[in-house]
């Protein structure tokens, strides 16, 4: 195994390949750092270039892009409160307040370090145990998925901030939005209002861009006098300890990073759960572990940034486990990569290791190299981006508006995506102003779809034999955790209302 990997390094680390990895990470980081654009967009639009380059370089290039863009989306989240994609939303929640307090540099650096650690560890796990992990993941069927998703949904309540009632309303609205489109079991349409564009459901990226980025732009544009005053603050407090990750910060974030990496790997390995599930779970747990959870969104929290970014980045390599071992994509990126692999004459799946062993070792080596290059590019790229926000708000915000329109056009099937983006921008605007919390909405929206399908499948599978539930210990564990979580939330809320009166 090690010998092969070393040989793989030799094959992978030619000047030609490293140049492509470097380019991939750089482009990915740049696209990811643009508000409203994330890893899905970056990887999808890059596929056509790879037609014309060597297979190993092509795949390494795409993996570089996916890693770079995953890490890069923290930049716009922290600096502009506009995450590139839903999975970075918690980064914005905990990181933007830090930037407003003059600690943008610190938050950006911690985000990068957490990203690289999550990514690197997850890559190592992929290399060492793709096959055995994949076999394990297959044992996780619909019955387990329902339990895991139900557990994730309890975080709606935990993340609902000031008002539990409002958080739940937003979460339910998110689930409701996820039911739009063709229902799988009966293939009947729901809420399509006669539009064929809605058959596939509401497109995720335009909804997220509208809800997260565009609605924030509306608020910022409408409040630009305050904004101009704050731009001065974003330039940094001038205190040197606010520009670096101090030992104190590491101590605070260390556990969050370990936990986040673990959660990211776990979620990534399971097909059917996305990066967003991983980062929301990790953020929710870091918040719960904190002594003062409400300070996360109020004052910002370095460990919140660390938790989200480590999980978000750990999902990507881990989602290649089912891709490489079974040919089943574990994430959007992995699904996009299937097309790229096939074009290069490689069919992802169990045959890949037999037919293309050398190429696989090369891919592994390239993935490790990409982690290190990411650290390098991110470190220097951040200085450049930190300089951009010193520009006047009218330039920054108009650029963001333009990019939001472009991103939803590209990822939402043309003009349809643009209209969806505009509608959800208005909804997001009101949600922000009336404290409904767009994060709980997004959790509901992202998880709702998979939850309903897994529920339908479970009912079919358990039909006639409900006692078969006992054969699913993993599911039982997660149901118990869900119940404990709900009870804990109810108790906490009761205590806080009692102490309030």
């Amino acid at each position, binding site marked *: 195994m090690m010998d092969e990997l070393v040989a793989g390094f030799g094959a992978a680390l030619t000047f030609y390949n490293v140049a492509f990895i470097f380019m991939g990470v750089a482009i990915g980081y740049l696209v990811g750092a643009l508000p409203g654009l994330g890893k899905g967009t970056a990887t999808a*639009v890059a596929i*056509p*270039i790879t037609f014309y380059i060597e297979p190993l370089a092509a795949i390494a290039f795409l993996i570089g892009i996916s890693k770079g863009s995953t890490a890069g989306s923290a930049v716009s989240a922290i600096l502009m409160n506009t995450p590139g994609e839903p999975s970075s939303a918690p980064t914005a929640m905990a990181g933007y307040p830090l930037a407003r307090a003059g600690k943008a540099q610190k938050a950006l650096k911690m985000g990068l370090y957490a990203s690289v650690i999550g990514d690197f560890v997850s890559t190592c796990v992929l290399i060492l145990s793709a096959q055995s992990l994949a076999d394990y993941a297959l044992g996780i069927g619909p019955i387990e998925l329902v339990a895991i998703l139900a557990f994730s949904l309890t975080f709606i309540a935990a993340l609902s901030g*000031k*008002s539990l*009632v409002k958080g*739940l*309303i937003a979460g*339910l*609205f998110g*689930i*409701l939005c996820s*039911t739009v489109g063709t*229902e799988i*079991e*009966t293939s*009947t*349409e*729901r*809420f*399509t*209002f006669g539009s064929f564009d809605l058959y596939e459901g509401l497109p995720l990226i335009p909804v997220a861009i509208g809800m997260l980025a*565009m609605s924030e*732009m*509306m*608020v910022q*544009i*409408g*409040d630009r006098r305050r904004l101009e005053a704050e731009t001065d603050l974003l330039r940094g407090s001038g205190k040197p300890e606010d520009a670096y990750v101090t030992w104190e910060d590491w101590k605070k974030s260390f556990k969050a990073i370990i936990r986040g990496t673990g959660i990211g790997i776990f979620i990534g390995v399971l097909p059917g759960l996305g990066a967003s599930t991983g980062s929301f779970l990790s953020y929710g747990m870091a918040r719960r572990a904190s002594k003062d959870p409400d300070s996360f969104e109020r004052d910002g929290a370095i460990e919140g940034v660390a938790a989200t970014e480590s999980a978000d980045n750990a999902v990507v390599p881990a989602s290649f486990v089912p891709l490489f071992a079974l040919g089943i994509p574990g994430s959007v990126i992995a699904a996009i990569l299937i097309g790229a692999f096939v074009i290069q004459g490689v069919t992802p799946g169990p045959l890949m290791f037999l037919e293309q062993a050398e190429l696989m070792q090369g891919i592994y080596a390239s993935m490790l190299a990409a982690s290190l290059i990411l650290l390098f590019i991110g470190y220097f790229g951040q200085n450049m981006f930190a300089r951009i926000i010193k520009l*006047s*708000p*009218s*330039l920054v*915000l*108009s*650029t963001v*508006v*333009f990019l939001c*329109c*472009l991103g939803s*056009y590209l990822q939402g099937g043309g*003009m349809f995506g*643009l*209209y969806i*983006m*505009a509608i959800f*921008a*208005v909804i997001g*605007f*009101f949600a922000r*102003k*009336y*404290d*409904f919390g767009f994060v709980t909405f997004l959790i509901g929206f992202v998880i709702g779809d998979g939850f*309903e399908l897994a*529920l*339908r499948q479970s*009912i*079919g599978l358990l*039909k006639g034999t409900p006692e078969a539930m006992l054969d699913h210990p993993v599911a039982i564990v997660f149901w118990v955790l869900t119940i404990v979580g709900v009870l804990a939330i109810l108790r906490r809320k009761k205590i806080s209302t009692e102490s309030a009166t």
Partner: protein
Amino acid sequence: MPKADLIAGVVLMVSGLALLFFIIPAQTEQDTGAAVPPDMLPQICALGITLLAAVLTLNALRGKTPDAKPPKASEWRAMVAVVVIILAGAALFQYIHPIVAGLFVTLATMLYMDERRWHLLLALPAALVVIVYLLFYEFLGTAIL
């Protein structure tokens, strides 16, 4: 009395009832013989929203919740302005040309934000359109329109 919460609660309650009794029955199939009818999850969500909105309204009437700050006049204006800019951009996209739409969206946002330095008004929209063109058409060699 927290007025903002009261308005939000009433609006949501009415929307929830509309969903329950009009929109969901009209837009989903009910009895299909499936293990879980297609309208079940939407009904649960709508019912939950209606009940929670009622709780929100009651709490607001009793003055128990911390009130939200409703949008300021300048924020209302900005919201409407951004929507108008997007829709106008969409119209330009379809009836004139995508490049015109791209230039317009950027330029209009800058003007709305009181940017009056003419060299920036010219440079930024042009730069964005050129960069996007170079990135997709020249570098990635793909068409996006």
